[in-house]
């Protein structure tokens, strides 16, 4: 054995040695899986009939989706007046949800792209579903800017297209327009990224499933993938390019979203800290959401061997750091206000902490800054149940962060005569719930029809398997 190895390694000058390879492979996938097992384990859930749990989850989210649809229809039929907004508070639930969902959408690309660039192999177990989540989250996000318009049927005016108005284009100075471009670009690139990653796995499905509708679909979308090394070579290049593009994109998108506020004159909005603050927040909430979903997924689909405690822990670490960043931002805001000597600025922040919406503010602080601190403790962050709860809490907290930023800044701005209060209407709340319906409906369907884990990538990071004693036999054994 030993000498044979030397014999081989000697001539193979430009091939990496087994040691090198081994060095590249920390134990990520437990249970001594082999590529064949990977294929089986991950494709199985799709072959099986959906579990009762899946059905339960699906019907709940579908119900929510339907309710939301009804709410939105009603709102579009009657007018934005069916929301609790007023002359002073022109945005509340709508844009809060928008920013919330965009934020969630960030972890996906972050995990698949940024971690890819940083050669974080553990990403392979989570990136597929993270990307899917991104897509669905951005869909939900995109919904709100459209329905929050007074005349949504004219949304297409946001696009710069030649027209008979002589010719009137769009206002490239408006952050809202930047949003339009940012969000749509983000959605498209993420979708492409996700699909590219999916092609080899679709090929696998195509080859292992017996003739039928699924095979046909798989073979259409796998574009005739045949695993040729030349293709793999180019594929890898493009995948890296996309990762390289997506990374700045992730940051740009939330930076631009934050500019919706940062470029405004309203105290509490008009601040330069917003871009980093929002990006950190977005990643924070995104990770929390990914983790939430992953924890559910590994339970429901018995993927404990692929999504191990290692994954959960490393994500917890990321979350902790992001959470602390966000906390720092909260502090900085107050410092800047105090230091600026601008009474309006100062008032806004005092009003946040002590005014009519203080309850929201303190919910936000405790959910995002205080509670996540428990992740400092190893046993806790390796305890799935605890992590799950914390993730939920963080999601709540991050929603409130956006709510606080938007509503408390607006409801008491410069002229006291215009100060007003805000309370959501039924329609608004149902619409919000509906967006969750949309999200989970999509995600659950995704779990059924596509491999939730990137098989081709997992196989690439499998621990070096124990060398089989008699290759011929195993060969015979295999060649049946």
């Amino acid at each position: 054995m030993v000498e044979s190895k030397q014999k081989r390694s000697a001539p193979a000058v430009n091939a990496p040695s087994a040691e090198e390879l081994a060095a590249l492979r920390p134990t990520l996938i437990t249970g001594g899986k082999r590529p064949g097992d990977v294929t089986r384990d991950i494709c199985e859930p799709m072959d099986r009939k959906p579990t009762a749990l899946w059905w339960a989850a699906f019907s709940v989210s579908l119900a929510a989706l339907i309710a939301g649809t009804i709410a939105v229809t009603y709102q579009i039929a009657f007018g934005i007046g069916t929301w609790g907004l007023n002359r002073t508070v022109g945005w509340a639930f709508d844009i809060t949800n928008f920013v919330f969902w965009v934020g969630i959408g960030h972890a996906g690309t972050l995990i698949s792209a940024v971690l890819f660039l940083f050669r974080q192999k553990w990403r392979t177990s989570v990136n597929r579903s993270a990307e899917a989540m991104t897509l669905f989250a951005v869909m939900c996000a995109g919904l709100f800017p459209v329905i929050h318009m007074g005349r949504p049927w004219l949304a297409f005016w946001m696009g710069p297209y030649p027209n008979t108005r002589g010719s009137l284009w769009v206002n490239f100075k408006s952050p809202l327009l930047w949003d339009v471009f940012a969000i749509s670009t983000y959605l498209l690139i993420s979708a492409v990224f996700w699909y590219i990653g999916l092609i080899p796995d679709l090929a696998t499905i195509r080859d292992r499933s017996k003739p039928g509708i699924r095979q046909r679909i798989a073979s259409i979308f796998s574009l005739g993938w045949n695993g040729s090394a030349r293709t793999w070579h180019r594929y890898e290049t493009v995948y890296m390019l996309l990762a390289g593009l997506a990374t700045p994109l992730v940051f740009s998108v939330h930076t631009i979203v934050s500019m919706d506020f940062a470029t405004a004159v309203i105290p509490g909005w008009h601040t330069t800290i917003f871009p980093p603050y929002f990006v950190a927040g977005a990643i924070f909430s995104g990770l929390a959401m990914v983790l939430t979903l992953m924890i559910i997924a590994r339970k429901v689909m018995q993927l404990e061997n692929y999504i191990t405690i290692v994954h959960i822990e490393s994500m917890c670490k990321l979350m902790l750091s992001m959470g602390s960043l966000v906390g720092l931002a909260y502090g900085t805001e107050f410092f800047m206000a105090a230091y600026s000597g601008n009474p309006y600025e100062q008032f806004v922040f005092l009003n946040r902490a002590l005014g009519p919406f203080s309850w929201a503010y303190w919910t936000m602080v405790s959910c995002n800054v205080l509670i996540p601190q428990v992740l400092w403790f190893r046993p806790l962050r390796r305890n799935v149940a605890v992590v799950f709860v914390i993730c939920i809490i963080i999601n709540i907290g991050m929603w409130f962060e956006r709510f606080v930023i938007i509503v408390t800044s607006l409801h008491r701005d410069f002229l006291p005569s215009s100060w007003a209060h805000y309370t959501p209407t039924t329609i608004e709340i149902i619409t919000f719930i509906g967006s969750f319906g949309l999200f989970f409906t999509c995600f659950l369907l995704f779990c059924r029809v596509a491999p939730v884990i990137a098989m081709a990538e997992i196989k690439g990071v499998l621990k070096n398997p124990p060398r089989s004693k008699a290759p011929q036999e195993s060969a015979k054994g295999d060649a049946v």
Partner: protein
Amino acid sequence: MTQLPDNLRSGDPGLHGPSLEIVALDESSEVSRRRFLEAAGFSFSLAALGGCGRAPVETSLPSPLQPAGAIPGRLQYYASTCTGCPSACGMLVGTRDGRPLKMEGLPGHPLSGGGLCAVGQALPIGLYDSQRLANPLQAGKSSDWATVDQQVVESLRQIKEAAKAVRLVTPTITSPTLQAAIDRFLEPFADAKHVVLDSVSHSAILDAHQQTHAARVLPHYRFEQADVIVSFGADFLGTWISPVEFTAAWSSRRAPSEASPEMSYHVQFESRMSLTGSNADRRVSIAPEEQGPLLGSLAEKIGELSGQPLSEPLARRASSDYGPVLTDLAKRLWDARGKSLVVCDSQDVGVQRVVNLLNHQLGNYDSTLDLKRPSRQRQANDRGVEELIAEMKGNQIGALLVAEVDLLHDLPESDSLTEAIAKIPLTVSFATHEDEFAAVAKFVCPDHHVLESWADAEPLSGLVSLAQPTLRPLGKTRAVLESLDAWSGRPGAAYEAVRAHWEEVIFPRRRADAPDTFLAFWEQTLHQGFVEVESEENLIEPFKIDAVDTLAQPKEAEGFSLVLYQKIPMPGGRHSQNPWLHELPDPVTKVTWGNYVCVSPEDAEKRGIADGDVVNVSISGVESSLELPVLVQIGQHKDVLAIALAYGCKGTDRFAKIGPQWFEARPTVAENEFVGKNAAGFVEFRDGTQQYLRSGIKLTKTGRKFELAATQTYHSLEVPKEIAPRGGERREIVEHTTLDAFAKDVHSGAAEHHFDGETQLWPEDHPRPKHSWGMVIDLNKCTGCSACVIACQSENNVPVVGYDEVRRQREMHWMRIDRYYTGEGEDMDIDHQPMMCQHCGNAPCETVCPVLATVHSDEGLNEQVYNRCVGTRYCANNCPYKVRRFNWFKYPHDDSLQNLVLNPDVTVRSRGVMEKCSMCVQRIEAGKIEAKSHGQPVADGAIQTACQQSCPASAIVFGDMNDQGSKISAALDNPRRFRVLEELNVRPSVSYLRVVKNREEKNNAEKHHNRESHSG
């Protein structure tokens, strides 16, 4: 409508008036506008259909006979007289294509001087009211004039034979012609009386003058000549007698300049917070029963100063803590003797006699109070009313005719009266809507709307004005004048009657310089709207001191005292059908839609009541009780309640569904209720006058809540104490100074900003080659009367949104008036700040609009393009002044008659678009085109915005800031000028002039200290 309207026959300027065909033209286009706006919503789906979409076929109906000189689509103005109330201000009626659209003040009118109040501005919506009675009613069923006349005449004849009593009840009649007609009508009857009943009576003033000057007249108050004004509860800037005139006069003395840093000194003693009080230099909150004593002591002090002390004290001593105030005031009054004025709203004749005494001591008669040429704007005689009630209860009346006033609504004990009325053989109502009396009257002979009929007025002895119709009556209505003449056997058109009366009575009284043929005289008057003639002799005897005697000691009663007052937007039941007025925020409380109980903060705290708690107000003994929501009113004296009259009128339940209807919307009017509650039940007759002040009132909580629809929910420039940043406790949105400080330094009171406007981040590459429109508002003149709000609403098609939307802070008024109470007690600054789009040069709203729906014109206007707007509301969020208004719903435009009130020059905004003050850009464009087609530059003042035109105080200056000679350029150089939130460098085109209060500097000092710490 078969015969041509009078004015078409008569060959005078009225000729350019109406022709329903033309109206029909615009109606059709209105309809199509609505249709379009609906269609607009689906333009997207329409686009799918490609080019095949055709606009709805529109027909244009030119009038078959071209009215001479009428130019289609052009606004034409007719001088007329507003008869919305007996003040009879001058009015310009703007008509377009035969539709009266816009009421404006008549420039140069001796009384109103170019201003017009909110009520006058709101006349058009009342004209196009589909629920106005369209034909006479007989026993509640619609009938026709012939039968009604025949029967009325018949029963009158019987009454005449039976020598039964005939009573004609009207409010103050300023129209000489109508007065003559009334006399003619009553003359043949043995026992006939004309009873004058004002919804809020000023009988006591007239009675007092009868006793002190032997003439029952109402003096003509000359506020413009008064250096010191002392008002005891008289809300002369809001509702008292002739508010527009008084506002103009008062504000003419409120403009201190560098050259002459002088202004009048105005003290207000009152127990509730009135608009006048909120504008006073010094406002003293007093218990109502203190009024007499205070006047008494003041008279004594003046007596001492004048060297003729009064023989015996007129009243019990006023409580000692008013001592210093009175001494100071007495001195000031005495120093300004002959140029001071004391007015009082009391309905106690004794008190009014003391007021007369004071004015006599100060020698104000013939200077600031004119008895030679008295006012005729209020002539109510409450004794007459009291007798009438007695007669009604005693069934001694044969015929009761009621015009322009709702007897049953405005008088107490309406139930017993209703029974009494049922027994009267002939009851005739001239109401335009089925009010409470009309409901029980045998005949209802609906009167014309003001804009439909000929009339005249003599508000001031010797000042007569004409009111001309501007369109053919929309329904089969008839002027009261015509009805009375018809029944007294001289049927004829009102036009003929007026003209005849003028020829016989007015023309002979003409002045020397007047034209000497009647036709010329008539035409001239018709053209300018009014004419000054010799006033009738009325013999006034010198002041009789012995008429003044000691005031009766008011009996001490348990519980609260109640002040009944008029809300400025609702001066009488006549206007209760007017949605614009209902939605006009009260200038003081900012509450719309209905009345409420004003409670002082002390009492509220003591009894744990908060805004919106429904309480039961009852008076011991009398069964009358009311359930109304509470409004805690800063500045109201403790143990005082105040409720507005003229609410709870029959028929106002029509407004139940006026707002948008969706599942969480609350109705504007609750099930089988009306807008507000009628408080007339608390009115009481005492010593021959109607008392609007009651004592011994009980207040009990019901535990229920009713959210008041207020347009302002935070009332101070000081942010809440507990969250106030150091130095930022008070916001310098409105700048103040005092006269002393101003005299020393004209720039005193200027807020210190950390920013110099010179350094700019961006290059100045946006020139204003042609014009640069701007506005300056003098906060020292502005009283907050809110006439501008309605002017704007009428000009710019601002929709009425109803109680629920206002409650949700979604009122649509483009122009709002912010009202702030800042500080405590007598040092409290009460500010009224008109706030509309500031047309910022660096407009934050423009930058953020993704679709270029709001951009800047090269004339400095912030343009809002409705048809481009997609409704992201980003602009509204980013507006520091929060002046943008969003169309949350499709506000109802389904009443095709009501739609005639819409201004065709202004787009009716569809659902989901943003709107805001456009600085009346339609007027600017029209003005520019007019000037251009005459080849001349736009003259300063040729273009006026709606708010500016209507402002009784002429506090608003609008013009071209590029034009160095213009009024606005002068105003911009005024040292008092400041801009709101200047430190944001948004560079508003709207500036304000600092408030100058005529008081000691002390409370200014501590304000300064504030600013130091804020800037430091």
